[in-house]
């Protein structure tokens, strides 16, 4: 027994003590807080790293020794360590008359070895055991497993409590409706009571091994003290014990790869059902379509596939129905969408084929369910009639039907000689080619004149002769321009044309003749009435043109 020195504040004394300073995992021990003050409120610390398996037990004691009276009150807890290591239990507090007092702290060393030591002698000392039994050792992701929690009681046990629930990792967990059952069984040389106290359904959603924290159960076990009473009956006492159950080794297998196209994760033994209230309707009736997944499987993650809607119907938001029951046989039930199809037009419409894939755990393979096409027949004349009423329930496009004639136009007169040619514009492109050729010729002619001065001179002479013979009024001007242009080419600028310059460049004889002709032409140009043109001028021009 450890007695730690407490905090002393005037006459108030508050102490904390522990039954052990070194304990094993799951080994209960007691912590007691005592105060010598009356009244007030004694508050325990936060027992971090420990679980309270018993208490609080309160006691008070008043003593009068030699006329001197003393008082003490105690608060006791029974604790169990959760993990190995050295931990400190914080101070308790005592409040009285507005004053606050604190106790000392306690240091507790927790060792696993102590537990192992106990394990070797379990058969003799352990009052009860707990275990988690699994319905399957291997499952696929999404396949349900049932876990049964059992306690085997070797001694009289009372106040069984679950200290720590097993938090399974990466699973959906559901507690099943279950009545606790007990039975007597022979285990080794002992007759024990086996108590099934909990049953759970888990659906793993990741491959690997089932994991999580252990299950811990506490209970008070009746044990002999080794003493006997007045009637020679053995005296018994109740000792608190903790039992731990490991998570069962369940292998969670991944679904086979590759997964089929469109697979959405459904696992189990399932069916996809499409129910139609009718396949033939009048215009003022509707069809109820139920699309349902039913059977046994991982309904927590299954979703009903979207309906591929038929043409010619209005489809309203579906109603969702669900009934799921968790049992030892897994998760059974159905999920369902209920659609209302309202016909819009008369005729036959196809409800398209649908496919849905799930993983069949019995076959260990993917199964694809195909719902075949169904023909829906809409009859009756009520569709148009109800549209004409304009009650707002029909789509806008259908109201427009009333705005045009109710029938198509009659036949047209056919001109049977009409033919569309394969290349209707070929001849026009040919003409375009000719036009381009014409322009090309114009261009070639221009270039030829530029490249051959003799040809250009001949062309000018020819043009002047033509103009002269056709009595072109501009013939004189053209002849004068031709001469001046020719003289410019010889190096005599237009403004410098004079007898002197002509004689100097062309020689006296030729220069004089050219000068004379130019003067005549200028006179004829500026005073046409004074001089008339005649053939001699043309002859002179032709003669001079050759000499120039």
């Amino acid at each position, binding site marked *: 027994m450890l007695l730690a020195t407490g905090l002393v504040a005037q006459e108030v004394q508050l102490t904390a003590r522990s039954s052990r300073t070194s304990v094993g995992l799951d080994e209960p021990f007691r912590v007691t807080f005592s105060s010598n003050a009356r009244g007030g409120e004694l508050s325990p610390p936060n027992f971090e790293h420990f679980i309270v398996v018993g208490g609080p037990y309160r006691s008070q004691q008043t003593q009068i020794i030699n006329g001197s009276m003393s008082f003490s009150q105690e608060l006791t807890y029974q604790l169990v360590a959760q993990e190995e290591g050295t931990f400190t239990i914080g101070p308790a507090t005592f409040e009285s008359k507005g004053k606050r007092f604190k106790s000392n702290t306690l240091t507790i060393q927790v060792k696993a070895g102590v537990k192992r030591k106990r394990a070797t002698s379990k058969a003799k000392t352990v009052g009860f055991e707990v275990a988690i039994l699994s319905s399957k050792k291997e499952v696929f992701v999404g396949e349900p497993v049932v876990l049964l929690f059992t306690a085997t009681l070797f001694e009289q046990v009372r106040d069984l409590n679950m200290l720590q629930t097993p938090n399974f990792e990466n699973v959906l967990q559901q507690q099943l409706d279950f009545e606790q059952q007990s039975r007597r069984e022979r285990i080794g040389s002992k007759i024990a009571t086996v108590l099934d106290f909990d049953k759970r359904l888990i659906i793993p959603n990741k491959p690997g091994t089932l994991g999580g924290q252990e299950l811990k159960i506490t209970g008070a076990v009746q044990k002999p003290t080794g003493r006997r009473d007045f009637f020679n009956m053995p005296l018994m006492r109740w000792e608190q014990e903790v039992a731990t159950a490991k998570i069962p080794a369940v292998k969670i297998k991944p679904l086979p790869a590759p997964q089929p*196209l*469109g697979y959405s994760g459904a696992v189990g033994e399932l069916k996809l059902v499409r129910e139609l209230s009718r396949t033939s309707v009048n215009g003022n009736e509707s069809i109820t379509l139920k699309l349902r997944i039913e059977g046994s499987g991982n309904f927590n993650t299954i979703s009903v596939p979207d309906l*591929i809607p038929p*043409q*010619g119907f209005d489809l309203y938001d579906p109603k969702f129905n669900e009934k799921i029951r968790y049992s030892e046989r897994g998760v059974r039930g159905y999920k369902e969408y209920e659609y209302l199809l309202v016909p*819009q*037009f008369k*005729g*036959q419409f*196809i409800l*398209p084929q649908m496919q849905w894939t799930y993983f069949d755990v019995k076959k260990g393979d993917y199964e694809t369910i195909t719902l075949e096409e169904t023909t829906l027949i809409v009859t009756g004349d009520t569709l148009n009639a109800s549209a004409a009423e304009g009650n707002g329930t029909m*789509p806008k*496009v*259908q109201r*427009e*039907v009333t705005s*045009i*004639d109710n*029938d*198509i*136009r*009659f*036949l*047209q*007169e*056919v*001109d*049977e*000689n*009409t*033919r*569309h040619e394969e290349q*209707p*514009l070929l*001849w*026009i*492109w040919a*003409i*375009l080619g*000719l*036009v381009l050729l*014409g*322009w090309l*010729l*114009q261009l070639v*002619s221009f270039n030829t004149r530029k490249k051959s001065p003799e040809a250009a001179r001949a062309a000018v002479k020819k*043009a002047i002769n033509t103009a002269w013979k056709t009595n072109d009024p501009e013939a004189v001007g053209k002849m004068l321009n031709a001469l001046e242009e020719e003289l410019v080419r010889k190096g005599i600028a237009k403004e410098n044309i004079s007898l002197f310059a002509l004689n100097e460049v062309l020689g006296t004889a030729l220069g004089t003749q050219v000068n004379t002709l130019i003067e005549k032409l200028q006179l004829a140009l500026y005073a046409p009435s004074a001089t008339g043109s005649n053939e001699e001028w043309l002859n002179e021009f032709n003669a001079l043109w050759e000499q120039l």
Partner: protein
Amino acid sequence: MGATLISVSDSANSLYADGQFESARTLFESLAEKGTSDPALYYNIGNCYTRLGQLGEARLWFERSLLFDPRNEETLHNLEWLNTRLTDALPPPNDALLHWIGNQLRAILAPEHWGLFAGVLLAGAFVLLVLRKFKRPALSWRLPLTLSSIGLVLLLAAQMSIPQSDKVVVVSNNSYGYSAPDANGKRIVLLSEGSAGRLVRASEGWFYIALGDGRQAWFSSDHWDRVLPITPR
């Protein structure tokens, strides 16, 4: 030849008037097979299909008729009437700009008329150019240039107004669209009769079609038909 054709047309009209739409359709389509390409003939075939309840085929032939005669009021009426019965059919994507311009031009004049005007002007320009070259060198170049330019524009208009279409129409009850040209591929869309799209490319019994809602998918060519070229079934 002409007399025979006229009697076929009249016979088809009579059959249609008597309610024998299937026989009338057969006769009208025989005319189309022989090369008659009057938009009125396409319109009549569309009418027969409408009466027979094959609205996808009807749409196809009305579209063909409108391609050659875009402003025909009776065809427009019948197509509108058809659209009110094909509310679940997917409309085609909008026309490409050049096709739209072609339609507008065709609504003004037939391609051969555009071509006729262009041909006259170009021929005039050619004559003037020849004259200028060989007879009248003094002739101004401005007139042939003007005629050539206008003629060229009219020729382009004629060329653009020639009916062209990459439109395709669902002629069966339904047509599944796949992600690949393979019936075992993933189904991504289901189109009803009369839906239309634009043919992007064709491959061994499969059409890759652009739809009006922006999606593209592979469809079995058995369920579709092109507006052009015209192929009677």
